C-alpha cells in the first residue's frame, strides 16, 4: 500500500522510531490535501504554517528523547463543528462564517497532546444536519470514488479526507449516523463510541442527548487508538461517564471466541440495494466460517426510529440553536430605521441559517409547542425507551448486531431532493444514537455502478460501554477483507 494509505498507527511508529520525521509526513499530507481539495472540497481551511510548526515541535521531542505520544506527527483533519483555536469554526454555516473559537475542544486537545497535528477543518452539512454534505455553505463535498456522487453526511469532508488519504485520520460527530454513513459511502472506518465516552466540550451542540464525537480512519486499530486517547471523564462535560475506559488496544488482535452476531430480519430487507444485501451476506458467511454464530434477532421498532429521531433531534436542535440571535457572536443582519430588536433576531437567523437548518428548527419548534408537545415530543421519548429496551433484549442473545450502515451506496447529487426521502436513508443508524450505543462501519465490498466502484460498509452495533469488544469484532471482520482499502480514482 502506498505511503498515504498507511494508517495512523504506522505513521506514529515511523515518527517515533526516527524512520521519518513529523515534518516530512505533515508536508506530504498537506500537499496531498491541497492538491485534492480543488476537486473534492473536503477542507474548508488548511493550516499550513501552524501544522508545520506543530510537526517541528513533535520532532524536537523525538530528538530530545522525550515521549512524543502514540500519534506522534500524525496529520489529523477536524470536522468544522469542533472548536479549535487555530482557524475558524464555522459549522459550514454563514451564521458562523467568521467565528474564531477562543478555546479548543477537549477531544482535539487530547489528540494533540498524544502527538497528532491538526492540518485543517473539514466541510460538513450545515450544523451537522444532513446525510449528503450537500447542505454546506461552502459548496458540496465530492465522493472520491465518483465525483458526481455524494460522500454521505454530515461528516462528509472528514470521511473523504480519511478515505482519500488526505490525512492520517479525521474527527467527525455522529447524531444519527453522521460518522458511520459517510464512512460507508466513502470506504473508510467510522466509529461512534458509546454516548458519554468522549467529551462533547467544544462540539457545537445539535442534539445534546444524541451527539457523540468519533474518528474516521483507514484501519480498525486507528479507530481503537484514537478513541483510547479521546475517551474518558471530562470535568467540562457532565455527561461524560465516570467509568474507567477498557483498553481497546490490548486484545484487539485476538479474535473473540464464540462471537455471537445478531442479524435482525428488519436489516436485510428488499428496500435495500441488492448489492448492499449481497455484500453484507458475504461478510456474515465469512464470519460464520471463522467460527462466529449467527443469531436471528428481532428489532420490530427499526422503522419507527426515523419518526422518533426526527422529533427528538429537531426538538433538541431548536433549543440549542436558539443561542444564535445575532447579538453576542455570529451573523448580524442590517436593520432599517424603526425596525425592532425582534426583526434583528429573525432576520439574522434567516440570513445566517440555510434551508435545512431552518426546516429542522421549525420542526423542532412545532413538536415542542404547547398544543403538540405530548403528541410528538412526549410520545417520541416514550418510544425511545422502548427502542432501548428492544436493543437490551436483543443483546441478551448476541454480542454485536450486524447490518448495513446505509440502504444504498453513494447516491448522485440532487438524488434526494425531497427532505423526507433523505431522512429515510438514516434508518439503520438513528436507533444507535436513540439508545446511546457504540457502533462502527467498516468497508467490506463494492457495488459496481457503470465504470465506478462504490464502497459498501458493514455496520456493527454493541451494548453501551462494550466499545472495546465492538472494536475487536470489527478487527475480526477487517482481517477477512485484507485488500479492501485501495486508492479511490479521485484521490
Amino acid at each position, binding site marked *: 500500500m502506498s505511503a498515504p494509505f498507511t494508517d495512523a498507527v504506522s505513521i506514529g511508529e515511523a515518527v517515533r522510531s526516527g524512520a521519518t520525521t513529523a515534518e516530512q509526513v505533515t508536508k506530504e499530507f498537506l500537499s496531498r490535501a491541497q492538491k485534492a481539495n480543488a476537486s473534492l472540497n473536503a477542507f474548508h481551511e488548511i493550516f499550513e504554517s501552524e501544522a508545520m510548526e506543530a510537526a517541528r515541535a513533535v520532532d524536537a521531542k523525538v530528538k530530545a528523547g522525550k515521549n512524543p505520544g502514540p500519534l506522534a506527527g500524525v496529520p489529523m483533519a477536524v470536522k468544522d463543528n469542533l472548536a479549535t483555536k487555530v482557524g475558524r469554526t464555522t459549522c459550514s454555516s454563514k451564521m458562523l462564517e*467568521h*467565528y474564531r473559537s*477562543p*478555546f479548543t475542544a477537549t477531544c482535539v486537545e487530547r489528540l494533540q497532546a498524544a502527538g497528532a497535528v491538526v492540518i485543517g477543518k473539514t466541510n460538513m452539512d450545515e450544523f451537522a444536519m444532513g446525510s449528503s454534505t450537500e447542505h454546506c455553505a461552502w459548496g458540496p463535498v465530492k465522493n472520491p470514488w465518483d465525483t458526481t456522487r455524494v460522500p454521505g453526511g454530515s461528516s462528509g469532508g472528514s470521511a473523504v479526507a480519511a478515505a482519500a488519504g488526505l490525512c492520517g485520520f479525521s474527527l467527525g460527530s455522529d447524531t444519527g449516523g453522521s460518522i458511520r454513513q459517510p464512512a460507508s459511502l466513502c470506504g473508510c472506518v467510522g466509529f461512534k463510541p458509546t*454516548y458519554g465516552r468522549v467529551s462533547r466540550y467544544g462540539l457545537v451542540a445539535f442534539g445534546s*442527548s444524541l451527539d457523540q464525537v468519533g474518528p474516521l480512519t483507514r484501519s480498525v486499530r486507528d479507530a481503537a487508538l484514537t478513541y483510547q486517547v479521546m475517551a474518558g471523564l471530562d*470535568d467540562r462535560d*457532565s*455527561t461524560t*461517564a465516570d467509568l474507567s475506559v477498557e483498553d481497546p488496544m490490548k486484545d484487539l488482535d485476538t479474535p473473540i471466541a464464540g462471537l455471537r452476531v445478531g442479524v435482525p430480519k428488519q436489516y436485510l430487507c428488499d428496500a435495500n440495494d441488492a448489492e448492499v444485501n449481497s455484500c453484507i451476506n458475504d461478510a456474515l458467511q465469512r464470519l460464520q466460517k471463522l467460527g462466529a454464530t449467527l443469531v436471528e434477532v428481532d428489532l420490530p*421498532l427499526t422503522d*419507527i426510529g*426515523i*419518526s422518533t429521531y*426526527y*422529533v427528538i433531534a429537531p426538538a433538541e436542535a*431548536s433549543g440549542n440553536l436558539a443561542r444564535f440571535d*445575532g*447579538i*453576542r*457572536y*455570529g*451573523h*448580524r443582519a442590517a*436593520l432599517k430605521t*424603526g425596525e*425592532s*430588536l*425582534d*426583526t*434583528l*433576531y*429573525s432576520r439574522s*437567523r*434567516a440570513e445566517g441559517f440555510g434551508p435545512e437548518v*431552518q*426546516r429542522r428548527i*421549525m*420542526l*423542532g*419548534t*412545532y*413538536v415542542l*409547542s404547547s398544543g403538540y408537545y405530548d403528541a*410528538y415530543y*412526549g*410520545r417520541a*421519548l*416514550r*418510544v*425511545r*425507551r*422502548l427502542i*432501548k429496551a428492544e436493543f437490551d433484549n436483543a443483546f441478551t442473545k448476541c454480542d454485536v448486531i450486524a447490518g448495513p450502515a446505509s440502504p444504498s451506496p453513494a447516491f448522485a447529487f440532487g438524488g434526494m431532493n*425531497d*427532505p*423526507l426521502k433523505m*431522512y429515510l436513508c438514516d434508518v439503520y443508524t438513528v436507533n444507535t444514537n436513540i*439508545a*446511546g450505543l457504540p457502533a462502527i462501519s467498516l468497508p467490506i465490498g463494492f457495488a459496481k455502478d457503470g465504470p465506478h466502484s462504490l464502497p459498501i460498509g458493514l455496520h456493527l452495533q454493541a451494548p453501551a460501554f462494550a466499545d472495546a469488544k465492538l472494536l475487536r469484532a470489527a478487527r475480526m471482520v477487517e482481517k477477512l477483507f485484507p485488500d479492501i482499502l485501495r486508492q479511490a480514482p479521485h484521490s
Partner: protein
Amino acid sequence: MAKLARLEIAPAKLEQYRGELANVLGHVAKLKSINVDGIEPLTSPVDSTNRLAADQPGATLSLEELFMNAPAVEGRFIAVPKVLAEENS
C-alpha cells in the same frame, strides 16, 4: 411557526416549507401506532447524575477573547439596536 422560531421567511418560501414539513409530520405521525401506555419518557441514554464542580475560582476567558466574535462592540459592551423605544411604539 416561523415567527415562533424567530425566522424571517418570505411568503413564497414559506409555502414550500409548509409542504415539506407537512410531509415530514405525516410520516412522523406513525408514532401514534405505538402503544406507550405506562412507559416513562427517556430523555437521555445514560443515567446522568448531577456532578458538581469544586467551588473554586478558575481561569476564565479574557474580555478580549469574549468580544472577539461580537458583531458590534462599544467600549466594554456589546452594542445592540435600541430596545426600549421600539418596545413602546
